[in-house]
């Protein structure tokens, strides 16, 4: 269970998060939706300690995220970044097996390579991709490699930051299906940030609507269309009129 309570974060005079409260039960898939610049990525980065919140607390299974052994804490997470964030200087297999080649999870090089190829196969990539450099991959392939890296060490919690941004609808569908399958198969807790409503319906057990620095509505995806929440309704229906101010 991930629990965020009263999270506030400001960058100068820009108050991005104004007391965010959110709970993600273990083994469920939470999708956070909201407009651009509403702080969705910041919320996710606060959990990982990439950004430090100004106030509020974050606990993972009751343990304060900012205390204790940081390596052990981070070893529980996998993350798929928006642009893939693959390391340019390393071939694909070393990107996927990055965690298995160093640190506490270190394995022999051959074994790490085998695991990397297996994970690549799991996300629909052939073994010959393993020795390519990230610059030689298409956008969809880079996302798949990022996904393979996120699951390589079989983490308990996986974060997906805009997993389908920049992909065509067919590739988006493929990535959504993969995410859903992998999360169910691994029994992992997942947190996804997206604008893509097709992704929301494919990936989510629960959704949370973030606007004005707070969660405006949260609940099961099945109740999304009948929530009666004006923010959520406007966002789902993509209307310009409503409580969310649209700049024209």
């Amino acid at each position: 269970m991930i629990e965020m309570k009263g999270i506030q974060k400001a960058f100068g005079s820009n108050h991005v998060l104004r007391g965010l409260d959110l709970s993600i039960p273990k083994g469920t898939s939470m999708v956070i939706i909201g407009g651009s610049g509403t702080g969705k990525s910041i919320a996710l980065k606060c959990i990982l300690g990439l950004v430090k919140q100004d106030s509020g607390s974050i606990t993972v299974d009751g343990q304060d995220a900012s205390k204790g052994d940081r390596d052990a804490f981070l070893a529980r997470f996998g993350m798929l970044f928006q642009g893939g964030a693959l390391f340019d200087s390393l071939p694909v297999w070393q990107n996927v097996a990055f965690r298995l080649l160093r640190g506490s999870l270190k394995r022999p090089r051959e074994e790490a390579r085998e695991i990397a190829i297996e994970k690549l196969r799991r996300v629909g990539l052939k073994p010959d991709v393993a020795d390519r450099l990230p610059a030689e991959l298409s956008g969809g392939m880079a996302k798949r490699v990022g996904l393979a890296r996120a699951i390589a060490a079989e983490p308990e919690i996986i974060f997906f930051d805009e997993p389908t941004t920049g992909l065509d609808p067919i590739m988006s569908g493929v990535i959504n299906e993969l995410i859903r399958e992998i999360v169910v198969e691994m029994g992992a807790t997942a947190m996804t940030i997206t604008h893509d409503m097709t992704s929301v319906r494919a990936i989510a057990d629960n959704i949370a609507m973030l606007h004005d620095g707070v969660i405006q509505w949260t609940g099961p995806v099945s109740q999304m269309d009948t929530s009666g929440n004006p923010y959520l309704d406007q966002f789902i229906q993509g209307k310009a009129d409503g409580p969310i101010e649209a700049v024209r």
Partner: protein
Amino acid sequence: MKPLALIGRTVMAALATIGRIALFGVQAVSHMLRPPFYGREFLSALLNIGWLSLPVVGLTAVFTGGALALQIYAGGSRFNAEAVVPQIVAVGMVRELGPVLVGLMIAARVTSSIAAEIATMKVTEQIDALVTLSTHPMKYLTVPRVLAAVLVVPLLVGVGDIIGVFGGYAVATGTLGFNPAGYIRNTVNFLEPLDIISSLTKGAVFGFAAALMGCFHGMNSGRGAMGVGRATKSAVEGAAILILAANFVLTGVFFTL
């Protein structure tokens, strides 16, 4: 009051940056002493900073040594001191021009590439990815580069010194009529161990400054292409200034105190 306030703000900002760089340097050294160590990244940095810099260092040194011989011969002839070409080329190259020129070439070639690479990694979230993969960016990116530069730049300076002296020798014996054996004898006899020690020490300090500035500005880069460009420019400027300032201080320490 406004001009004064502007000066005050500029000075405070400059001092804050110096403080941040100093703190970054202390953290880099502190991480050098504690595991984990990334051997592959260190070897890759050694190759990039050392081996791949040899051509530019060699060419810079050979032309500078040759030009220095010509200058000393022309200048010395004004007071019948043409014969001191071997000694002045040796001292000039080993004590001053070798380390400074190698340092500046490293700033141009290595600092810029480190800053641009790390800044791009920051902009594309690769540094965040490193953290989520339980890898400290300071240990993985900064320590190998800084340590490699500290170890390999003195070697480059040594090579540059030798090639620079050879450049002077080639010009002096080829066009100025110096006796080859006499030129080498004068060079060897005139140089003292302190000249070589100061040269190599300067190389280590300049290597530290060059790599540190690349890493610091890369890690603190702004967003987008403009952020990467600014980081690279600031890193090269900072490294060049730091190298020249350190050269002044070290010259004072070695030869006047």
